[in-house]
């Protein structure tokens, strides 16, 4: 039988049930993840289950990245509880402070996720690891608590949608623009309870970082996961990131998909998702004249070194508008150091940006960049729901790093070439 990548990955982890589309299968998990918001609830459920130890102290990651550095006493207390739990259980991969980054940028960098893995995380953007050929999906805290105890969880094997990206990418167009275009075409429920398996010539040429940006936003189309074959590029990334023995994996030729979506990106300009849904996708030129008060460059979607380089290429020799707060948050300590070593911070500081620590803060209206009433932000993050970054009467526009940087300079949403 010719199998989708989804079926292959789940079949390789099945302990009971058949990993055929539509059936329910119990699977081993290679990693269970939670953060400072979701781990406290997972620990509560873990205790309620009567558990006294985790299934494997090496296969659990607890990353304190959302309201951190702790924004208030309540968030500090949540982190304290998780820290004590990690110590009690002997959890090896607990991250807080100087070794901590935005979880979905940090874990691939540390080699904790890789091709062939099944990963569950109490964070919806866990789907990022699909970029490396892992079946990775977001769940709630109680589901993750169950996985922490048993080392297993159940899945209904999802239908797969085959998304093929063809054509030639224009200037300043990257992974963010590709995934926004996909979400714009199929809608925020277009892949509900499905996996998107991405391929095509554009994907083959795309960097692993660009693929992570795309996989990251599979959930924004309702997807359970967004998968990419693990190819030579994946193996090179893994070899450079503490994962030396990774192996290639891909869907079988001729596998059956629920739906085929083909997108030709020739001539496509950078994309922008306007409030209040990620499916409200327009060309950047259609947003001209939209003034902004804040620009955020960072997050699990676009806070990697490639993104910071792109922003620096636009900001070099220019000044951020007096009316805009431009906030740059490298996603991990390693990215932070690399950006410093490459001189990107000099570019950002000369342009008038604020450079902050790795944190999810502003993406979810947590801290370090909250919007007031009537304010508008352009952001490289993943959601533009109403009130996402602060006041209910504020607005978030989603874009890639180049458009966010250019808009910070212009004080309104613009194409980088229009500066």
């Amino acid at each position: 039988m010719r199998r989708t990548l989804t079926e292959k990955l789940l079949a390789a982890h099945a302990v009971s049930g058949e990993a055929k589309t539509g059936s329910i299968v119990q699977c081993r998990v290679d990693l269970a993840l939670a953060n400072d918001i979701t781990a406290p609830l997972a620990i509560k459920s873990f205790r309620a289950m009567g558990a006294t130890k985790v299934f494997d102290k090496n296969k659990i990651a607890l990353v304190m990245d959302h309201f951190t550095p702790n924004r208030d006493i309540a968030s500090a207390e949540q982190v304290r509880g998780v820290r004590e739990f990690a110590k009690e259980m002997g959890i090896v991969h607990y991250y807080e402070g100087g070794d901590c980054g935005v979880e979905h940028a940090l874990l691939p960098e540390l080699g904790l996720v890789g091709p062939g893995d099944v990963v569950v995380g109490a964070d919806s953007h866990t789907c990022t690891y699909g970029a490396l050929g892992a079946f990775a999906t977001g769940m709630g805290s109680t589901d993750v608590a169950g996985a922490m105890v048993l080392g297993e969880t159940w899945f209904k094997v999802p239908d797969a949608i085959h998304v093929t990206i063809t054509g030639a990418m224009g200037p300043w167009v990257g992974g963010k623009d590709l995934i926004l275009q996909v979400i714009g075409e199929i809608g925020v429920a277009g892949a509900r309870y499905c996996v998107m398996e991405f391929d095509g010539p554009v994907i083959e040429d795309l960097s692993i970082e660009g693929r992570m940006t795309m996989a990251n936003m599979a959930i924004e189309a309702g997807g359970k996961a967004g998968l990419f074959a693990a190819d030579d590029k994946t193996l090179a990334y893994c070899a450079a990131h503490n994962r030396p023995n990774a192996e290639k994996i891909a869907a079988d030729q001729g596998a059956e998909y629920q739906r085929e979506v083909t997108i030709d990106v020739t001539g496509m300009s950078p994309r922008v998702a306007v409030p209040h849904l990620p499916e409200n996708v327009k060309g950047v030129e259609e947003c001209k004249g939209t003034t902004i008060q804040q620009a955020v460059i960072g997050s699990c979607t676009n806070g990697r070194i490639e993104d910071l380089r792109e922003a620096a290429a636009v900001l070099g020799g220019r000044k951020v508008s007096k009316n805009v707060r431009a906030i740059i948050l490298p996603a991990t300590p390693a990215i932070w150091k690399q950006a410093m070593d490459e001189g990107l911070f000099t570019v950002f500081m000369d342009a008038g940006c604020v450079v902050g620590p790795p944190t999810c803060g502003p993406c979810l209206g947590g801290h370090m960049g909250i919007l007031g009433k009537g304010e508008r932000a352009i952001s490289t993050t993943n959601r533009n729901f109403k009130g996402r970054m602060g006041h209910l009467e504020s607005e978030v526009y989603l874009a890639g790093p180049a458009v966010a940087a250019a808009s910070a300079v212009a004080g309104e949403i613009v194409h980088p070439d229009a500066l």
Partner: protein
Amino acid sequence: MTAPIRGTAHTMGHHIDTDAIIPATYLVSTDPIELGKYCMAGMDPDWVNHVEEGDIIVAGENFGCGSSREHAPIAIIGAGVKAVIAKSFARIFYRNAFNMGLLLLEVGDAVDKISQGDTLSIDPAAGTITDETTGESFKFAPVPPFMQEILNKGGLVGYVSDRLESQAG
């Protein structure tokens, strides 16, 4: 199986996201009563003041899209809501609600016909929703067997503790 439910319908639109259900800023608690105070605060901070114990949310497509935060079904439960009827649910939310014991029903024709403020009664055993205000009834399919098994163990917490006990035994 869940006991019969009777309450007032609170209607809403499509794609009600988890930031609408419980904005991230309130996620410094795991307590249902505390989270319940801010249920739907991302849509309308006053919404919760019009809800009584036993009430029912009636929504469009893709209810619960967005974050994996389990705080979303917990906030709904904390506000006193006993069931959500929608055209469709986002899948992480669906699973979370199930694990938390919040009844979700995908019944599109009911959503089309129920109006804000109608009195509804749900009989989970019979698989019926009755709009007492209009007199109309709607059928829904029974819960799938695998989920029934988890339900029979009292939710996921009960299911896992049961497995732990059998391993120890």
